């Protein structure tokens, strides 16, 4: 195995017993990038010089015995988290030249833990999309099949991990943007509880739904990343001041006598038969691991997508009002008057999916329509959350497919926004309810495309997700495959 193919915990071992250096690990990642990046396009920007300098510094620390949890580990960052002095575009023309004057809290935390930043990963523009096709910098391709999408919006972060172009990465999840690409790329992805990870320095899409989380090669690495990024931040008023457990302690624990809810509304027509079969198999593995699976109902499931496509665009239309060509980013040339400058700047600076969502949101919030759309959706959101509250009374965890289908083809859904939205049907409810979720690989289709199983838990119960995901990973013994690029 090459160094770039290993997990964080495997590399940590090697660093601790002095069998590798941070420089060797980092060089191995960049030689992989040199070999495959042209075809996959995981990154908007690479940070090779900075990364090698950081690796050299890490090697000095390692010699001194000063080894932190991520010392020498190459990490990719979705280009939505601000990095001081390094261009942060959010996949948009309107921020193509934006150089943040500060670091996001997640970047500060990873840096303090010793991480080496490899680059800024590609994404759907402003995280609006399920395929990474709306990026101003061109699409990312699925490492398992270059004709297909990697999922989105954090498609670059997911593809980079799947293609071994980094060891782990950071994404953000507003309606499934971590779990869906994790499933479609055959890796582990977690969306933590709303408020668990600070959003300071995360470019806002829908502030009541956005959450930062990790992509990793296995569940133990997910726990390691969560240990670093979780926690209260006085700079972020919605981050929650609650105790953060050591997530690694949940690895290897059994799930005997746990009750696992299987919501019947997630096994509907339109779910790919191979996905369905893989999930049924995952249920059997959970039962063989000592879990008791029971059918439950989340009765408002069918209203989740409609609710989301009012609330998320409404918040986005307000958040994206700041891009006006005045303070930062792109400004249209040859404009003579202020209103014209706003309008032309935004017309030229935003792509069509972003414009579409700004339009839906502006409409839903406009005079005469607020009660019919935004208020109504906020009420249905309360009903959706109530469904979960009831489900978690008897159940420890809920198990569902992460996505209804495996990765679809590039271009297949770009002309039909509604079909694209429906690919998030199993992930959106989590964000509306604010609960945590994790996607774990659970097999492959006959064409060799990865499938993911999703586990959901109550607020701040990421530990339970790590525990069941780790038990599942151990007992399912999913064949270890790597994409052939």
């Amino acid at each position, binding site marked *: 195995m090459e160094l770039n193919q290993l997990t964080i915990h495997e590399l940590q071992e090697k660093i601790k017993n002095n069998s590798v250096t941070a420089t060797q690990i980092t060089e191995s990642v960049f030689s992989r990038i040199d070999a495959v990046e042209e075809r996959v396009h995981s990154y908007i920007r690479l940070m090779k010089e900075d990364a090698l300098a950081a690796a050299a510094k890490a090697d000095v620390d390692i010699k001194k015995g000063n080894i932190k949890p991520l010392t020498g580990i190459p990490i990719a960052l979705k280009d939505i988290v601000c990095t001081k002095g390094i261009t942060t575009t959010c996949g948009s023309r309107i921020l193509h*030249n934006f*150089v943040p*004057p*500060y670091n996001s809290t997640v970047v500060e935390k990873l840096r303090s833990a010793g991480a080496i930043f490899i680059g800024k990963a590609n994404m759907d523009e402003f995280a609006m999309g399920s395929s990474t096709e709306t990026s101003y910098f061109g699409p990312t391709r699925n490492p398992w099949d270059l004709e297909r999408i990697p999922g989105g919006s954090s498609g670059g972060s997911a593809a980079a991990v799947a293609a071994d172009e980094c060891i782990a990465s950071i994404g953000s999840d507003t309606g499934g943007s971590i779990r869906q690409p994790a499933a479609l790329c055959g890796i582990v992805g977690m969306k933590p*509880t*709303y*408020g668990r990870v600070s959003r300071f320095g995360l470019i806002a899409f829908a502030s*009541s*739904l956005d959450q930062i989380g990790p992509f990793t090669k296995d569940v133990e690495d997910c726990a390691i990343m969560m240990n670093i990024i979780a926690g209260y931040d006085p700079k972020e*008023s*919605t981050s*929650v001041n609650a105790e953060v457990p050591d997530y690694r302690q949940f690895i290897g624990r059994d799930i005997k006598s746990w009750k696992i809810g299987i919501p019947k509304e997630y096994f509907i027509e339109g779910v790919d038969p191979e996905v369905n079969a893989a999930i049924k198999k995952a249920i059997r593995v959970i039962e063989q691991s000592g879990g008791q699976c029971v059918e439950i109902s989340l009765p408002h499931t*069918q*209203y989740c997508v*409609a609710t989301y*496509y*009012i609330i998320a665009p409404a918040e986005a*239309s307000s958040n994206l009002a700041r891009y*006006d*060509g*005045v*303070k*930062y*980013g*792109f*400004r249209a040339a040859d*404009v003579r*008057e*202020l209103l*014209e*400058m*706003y*309008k032309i700047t*935004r*017309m030229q600076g935003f792509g*069509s999916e972003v*414009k579409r969502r*700004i*339009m*839906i949101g*502006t*409409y839903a919030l*406009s005079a005469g329509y607020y009660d019919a759309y935004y*208020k*109504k*959706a*906020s*009420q*249905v*959101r*309360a*009903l959706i*959350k109530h469904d979960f509250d009831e489900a978690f009374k008897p159940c420890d965890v809920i198990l569902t497919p992460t996505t209804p289908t495996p990765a679809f083809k590039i271009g297949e859904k770009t002309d039909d*926004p*509604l079909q694209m*939205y429906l690919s998030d049907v199993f992930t959106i409810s989590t964000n*509306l*309810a*604010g609960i945590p979720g994790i996607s774990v690989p659970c097999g492959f289709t006959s064409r060799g495309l990865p499938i993911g199983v999703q586990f959901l838990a109550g*607020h701040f119960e990421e530990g339970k997700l790590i525990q069941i995901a780790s038990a599942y990973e151990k007992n399912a013994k999913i064949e270890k495959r790597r994409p052939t690029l």
Partner: protein
Amino acid sequence: MKISSREVEYVAHLARLEVTEKETEKFTAQLNDILLYIDKLNELDTKGVEPMNHAISVTNAFREDKMLDSIGTENSLTNAPDARGEFFRVPKVID
């Protein structure tokens, strides 16, 4: 029709987006599809349901009123498309 092309033009103006005739046409069709789908929500009786505005129950997050470092004027202006002195520069607002 949930939304006419004239309404689409008006919403674009509210959102400070210049739209071409072709875009207006496309957005009108797509927004109609999306809004028709969203009509699904009207199947539900939500009378008396308190709207949920946040994923978790949050109360005001107060902090002590003390001076901390900020990024400062110079740093704040480095990304500006057009800045002069301590100010952002924009095209004239009134004649």
